[in-house]
């Protein structure tokens, strides 16, 4: 049992445990806090995968912005100080089935792309011998360096297209936010 494995088990317990708490807690605010702990666990897993930049970005974006937005939404729409919602509603079985199916699809995709476990279960996957996984031809760029990641962002053989599309999406979000918050003409007269 190496140190890495111990740390991985601890981080996974944190992530999965708090994720379970998010969907089962009755107090909505506590559920949001548990969601933040889940994000923290995911950031730890990113650090274990040598993706320090991604871990810091997870902290900055998910915990520092999205969770706060969630908490604001909870506070603005639920005026109860001790919110005591029933944890499950009538859609719980459909949600469970969807989650399990989604998990299996993601698992299949990962195993097929990276070829993990092909020796044991080649009967099920039958991955072609010389298939090139998507996007992994820029793998030489993805080292432990932020400069390399920046290069991959603007490299035409790299991720420049997703990068630009994400920028357009963010711009659309900003413009939408401004339009939603723009004071209407009638309000200025009153």
């Amino acid at each position, binding site marked *: 049992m190496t140190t890495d494995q111990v740390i991985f088990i601890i981080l996974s317990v944190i992530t999965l445990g708090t994720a379970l708490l998010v969907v089962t807690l009755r107090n909505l*605010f*506590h559920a949001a*806090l548990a969601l*933040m702990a889940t994000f923290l666990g995911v950031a730890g897993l990113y650090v274990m995968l040598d993706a*320090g*930049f991604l871990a*810091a*970005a997870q*902290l*900055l974006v998910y*915990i*520092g*912005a999205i*969770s*706060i937005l969630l*908490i*604001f939404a909870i*506070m603005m729409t639920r005026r109860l*100080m*001790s919110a005591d919602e029933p944890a499950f509603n009538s859609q719980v079985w459909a949600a469970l089935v969807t989650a399990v199916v989604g998990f299996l699809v993601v698992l299949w995709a990962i195993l097929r792309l990276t070829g993990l476990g092909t020796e044991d279960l080649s009967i099920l996957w039958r991955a072609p011998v010389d298939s090139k996984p998507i996007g992994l031809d820029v793998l030489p760029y993805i080292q*432990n*360096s*932020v*400069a390399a990641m920046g290069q991959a962002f603007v490299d035409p053989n790299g991720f420049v297209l997703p990068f630009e599309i994400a920028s357009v999406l963010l711009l659309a979000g900003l413009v939408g936010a401004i339009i939603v918050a723009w004071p209407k003409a009638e309000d200025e007269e009153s």
Partner: protein
Amino acid sequence: MSFDIVEFLKSLVSLNVAEYLKTVVGDQAWVNFVSDVIGVVIISTFCLLIVIFLIWLERKVIARMQDRIGPNRVGGRYGLLQTVADVIKLLIKEDITPAGADKLAYWLAPFLTVIAALLIWAVMPFAPGVIGVDLDIGVFYVLAISSASVVALLLAGWGSNNKYALLGAFRAVAQLVSYEVPMILSLLVPILLARSMSTVDIVEAQTVPFIFVVPLAAVIFMISALAETGRTPFDLLEAESEIVSGFHVEYGGMKFGMFFLAEFISTLFMSGFFTTMFLGGYRLFGLENLVIGDGWAIGRLLGLIIFFVKMFAVYFLFIWIRATWPRVRVDQILNFNWKFLVPLSLVLILAIAVLDKVIPADAGIYARSSILLLANLLIAMFAIEIMRTVARRKRKESSGDAAMTIDESEHNDVHDAHDSHHEVAAAH
């Protein structure tokens, strides 16, 4: 195991005791672990103990600037033990939890704030080679932790079961989240110039300290740091006369002491960060690399002293600003950020990025620095001109508005005095 006293003293002077102990004990895994733990303990203890000095310093300096003396009773003529008395007072207070408070949130908030304030010290370069961990993404790590620590404010506001605390927490979160944007954008400028996010690399890249190359970025960072730590003029969040102390109205005793502690630690960190990013950190014309005699690397000790001098100079600036400037209203704070600071910092980063590419690579460091300095001053003059025009227009629209420039308002005040005299004379 040969323990040589001279070598030990040399390692002490060069702040490298861990390396020397490794040669004595042998390079095993647990040696690294123990030296890391000791390093963490030293940094945390330093942060917690220096606050005692910082609180006294702040009270004395503000007092002198306000033409009074400050604490001078506890601990001799200079009130040196005043902070100790304050801490004892906080410790012996009754520990109250408000009725109906969310216990988890209420108890977690002060600790999270202090944890975040201590975590960021890991990437502060104190001297050449003396740093907690030289992260590839040092600056980004600081920004991420500062951003994640905003959560603690919401916990405090919500967990207090108090409308005013909640409103104060909302305003605090709005201010902190808003001022992260110009902080990140202004920090991108030294990152760009140093081609790295590691704090050590940024210090090493400052042959000319960046404050002489990109002073506008330094000013924007200073303003954002003031807002992020909640110092005057942006201390609306927690001032006692505003919204009854904002989000920590329901906190007393040591829990309030923790918020207090976290504020001082993060203010000191921001001063240290400012010196790292813009003032050249521990560098002073190569003094930090001084090695005299037979391997006595006192340069590192000198670097540590230089770093502390610079850090406390910036901290003095923080105190000075607190002693002399008034508080800004919360809507003015947010307006100033989104309508002035963010566009300015965007224009700045754009201009610096373009200029950095356009200046030929063999231009030499002084030519490069002067061109960037010129560009900074031009952008700053342009921005001030725009501010002046906007203020003039606003003043024309609504006469008697607060937005006046100094020379014009003196003019107007004289006229108002004359008019009021005429009105009073006419009334009689």
